[in-house]
């Protein structure tokens, strides 16, 4: 019998498998995806949020525990667990040497991401390079890996793991780590979680998934039905506004639209609905998915003029271009008269001071609702561009409740051989909101904890078994 069974194939699963193997356990890892799509959402990530008290290789200055904690507290609005959050934070300050040992390369921040040079360590080549490195290391250490192996159910005995099932196949192990991701690619579940709105729409039907197509939440659903303790709200997710032309799944980083704060955003009725200049875009991009989800048809249009060109990260698809605003409205399929009213009102309300996109400048509107509080400049310079936006879900927050042992709990009692890591439990730390790179911090910390605990559990069982035989 195998010692540790790891279900999942992303960062948390790999961290667990590597730690368990290093602890001397035999490990089998089951990845639902084929090899070409392995790695779950980790293949779309690019960095790790790291605590550090002094400059560390690619990280500049310091990012102390308390500051990291305060950042997390702020983005989650307090929906977090301080004990677990601080565990993740402290772990993030020491895990990188171990990551390097397994082949992960770090690099200074990417161009256009200098604002996180202090807080985030970037993976050279991004998350897929990290995933590749971990798989290579796991193979070299003798971890058995199976692709195309989607586990559909578990055999549990009073809170203890007995076996996993893939169709008719039954795989037993002494202990198990669940790291199979959230349910963002389960359309039915998303539909149910978001429900029907007052317009009679099912908003989730119009969502795009930035993350992996393989996170259908089969195992999460199974565990919830099996009575495992859960945490989080099923409608909470990392949800950003992305290009409406993005692929249905696996759109990843490049589908984002970064020009919102440089122009205005209107909905299908050609009306503005939120302060586009509320704060720096990196601090606001994660709310625009939800904002767009609230609009009729779950669609919005980011409108900019020629002044914005060269001031934001280039989008993956070219914008719809027009020489006049009415032409742009027609090309976007918006009501021209209403669009012109909205734009004229906005343009007339702009109080332009000294435009500076690198700080919260004094360009703002007066007498228009909603106000645009920074970077407000009239849209008056042709050509004009429009980008249609849709909500893009990166990952979901509903998960299994854990303590610092990463053990799955039933009626508040921890299982002694079933553990959980990654997206399946990130909601313990991240009840809502997001800050760059924290998903990987949680996955790495709890993946390593779960792997260590699972190995210890399996090896203890082996010893007990041996003792029993000896006696």
């Amino acid at each position: 019998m195998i010692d540790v069974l790891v279900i999942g194939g992303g960062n948390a699963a790999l961290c667990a498998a590597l730690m368990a193997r290093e602890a001397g356990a035999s490990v089998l890892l089951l990845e639902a995806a084929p090899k070409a799509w392995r790695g779950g959402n980790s293949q779309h990530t690019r960095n790790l949020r790291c605590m550090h008290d002094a400059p560390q290789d690619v990280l500049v200055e310091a990012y102390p525990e308390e500051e990291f904690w305060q950042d997390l507290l702020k983005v989650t609005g307090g929906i977090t667990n301080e004990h677990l959050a601080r565990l993740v934070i402290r772990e993030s300050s020491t895990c990188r040497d171990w990551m390097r040992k397994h082949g992960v390369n770090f690099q200074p921040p990417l161009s256009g991401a200098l604002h996180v040079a202090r807080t985030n360590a970037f993976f050279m080549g991004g998350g897929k390079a990290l995933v590749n490195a971990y798989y290579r290391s796991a193979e070299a250490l003798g971890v058995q890996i199976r692709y195309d192996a989607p586990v559909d159910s578990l055999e549990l005995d009073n809170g203890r793991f007995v076996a996993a099932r893939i169709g008719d196949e039954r795989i037993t192990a002494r202990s198990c780590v669940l790291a199979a991701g959230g349910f963002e690619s389960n359309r039915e579940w998303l539909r149910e979680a978001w429900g029907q709105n007052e317009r009679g729409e099912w908003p989730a039907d119009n969502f795009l998934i930035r993350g992996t197509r393989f996170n259908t939440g089969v195992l999460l659903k199974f565990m919830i039905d099996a009575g495992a303790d859960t945490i989080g709200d099923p409608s909470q997710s990392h949800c950003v506004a992305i290009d409406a032309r993005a692929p249905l799944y696996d759109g990843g980083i490049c589908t984002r639209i970064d020009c919102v704060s440089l122009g205005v955003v209107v909905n299908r009725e050609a009306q503005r609905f939120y302060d586009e200049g509320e704060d720096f875009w990196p601090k606001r991009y994660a709310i625009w998915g939800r904002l767009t989800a609230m609009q009729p048809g779950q669609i919005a249009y980011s409108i900019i003029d020629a002044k914005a060109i060269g001031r934001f990260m280039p989008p993956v698809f070219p914008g719809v271009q027009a020489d006049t605003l009415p032409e742009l409205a027609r090309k976007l399929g918006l009501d021209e008269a209403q669009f012109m009213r909205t734009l004229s009102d906005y343009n007339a309300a702009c109080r332009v001071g000294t435009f500076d996109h690198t700080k919260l400048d004094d360009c703002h509107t007066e007498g228009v609702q909603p106000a645009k509080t920074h970077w407000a400049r009239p849209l008056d310079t042709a050509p004009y561009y429009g980008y249609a936006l849709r909500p893009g879900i990166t990952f979901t927050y509903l998960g299994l409740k854990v303590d610092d042992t990463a053990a799955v709990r039933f009626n508040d009692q921890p299982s002694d051989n079933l553990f959980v890591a990654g997206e399946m439990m990130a909601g313990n730390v991240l009840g809502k909101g997001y800050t760059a790179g924290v998903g990987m911090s949680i996955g790495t910390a709890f993946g390593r904890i779960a792997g260590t605990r699972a190995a210890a559990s399996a090896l203890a069982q082996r010893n007990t078994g041996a003792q029993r035989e000896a006696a």
Partner: protein
Amino acid sequence: MKQLEALVHQARETLPPATATTSQMARNGINASATMTEQPVQWHAKGTAITPAALSDDETEVARVMQICNACRYCEGFCAVFPAMTRRLEFGKADINYLANLCHNCGACLHACQYAPPHEFAVNVPQAMAKVRVQTYSDYAWPSALGKLYKKNGLTLSIAAAGALALFLVLTVAITGGLLHEPLAGNFYAIFPHNTLALMFGLVFVFAIIALGIGVTRFWRDVSPGTASGAAVAEATHDALRLKYLDGGHGKGCNNADDAFTLLRRRFHHLTFYGFMLCFAATSVATLYHYAFGWEAPYPYFSLPVLLGTVGGIGLLIGPAGLLWLNLRRHPLQGDAAQKPMDRGFIALLFLTSLTGLLLLALRETSAMGLFLAIHLGVVMALFLTLPYGKFAHGIYRCASLLKWSIEKRQPDNLKLGSD
């Protein structure tokens, strides 16, 4: 900056007003303002009219891929292609040719890519770049008509090799009356007079230099790199001689068969290149001995030309053999399969050059010297004949692109993409 603006205006004026629609003008306005913030890119007119958008299918694919990469940028640490890309918002023909030749086909960005096949974006930077690269060599070739030789390079190489071999074998028979002869104590010139050889190879070599020189000059003008500072030249030289961009950015090397990194390609390339240079040095020293000092071959085994040639020859045996082995094992998505005959043909010629050279050295005192001399000269002639129209061109265009990058990175980057 004034100079840049002038160039932008010039670029605008070169647009034929009769054919440019309003939206084209507008688009080029964006293009111009984008290039204004970095550095001037001249749109080169090949053929008839100046049409900035006249991209080939392969170039269009690079432009498509770069648009995706520019929105992602995860690969920025691997090599120079991606930092060069981030200085642009749009990709015209000249930019594409430059980036394609800057790419070393290391494969790192293919294996790290979340958008690589089977993703519907099907991003494959090394392959897209490779396809444009060979097109660059052919487009810029001089004389233009011979540019076609790149397209069927396996055939080109075979014909050159067979023809050159036949030539020297027939000459040997004509001169010595047969392929075997009485031992001549290693005196090559008893069969082929020195001046004849010097003239034949000298002419072919000079032609190769001129043809490649003209080609790369055209390429250089098109990518309009600005003025090279000493520091830029030193850096580009360093990057070329060390093969900096085959180290993966992290020093572990590039990809070959799979996502694992290896330094073998870099090392085998070093053996090949420096082996070739040592053989070249051997020939140069021998030529100097002959004309300046009147010391005629054969030279003793421990003379400078023979030592240089032997050491270089061994490098030029191991290097190409290793490169061929890596080429055969390379991941099918990495690079352009259609160019394998060109790559392998060139590698084989280099290998045969050193193999026949070393054999000739070993057998120079036997009656087979004439035969091996003819074979060696045939192979070397084939190598020289195909230098300007085969894989050798990659070194020339790569160096030009590296120098351009070293110049460009020292220019201010005025794109303000700080919002991310």
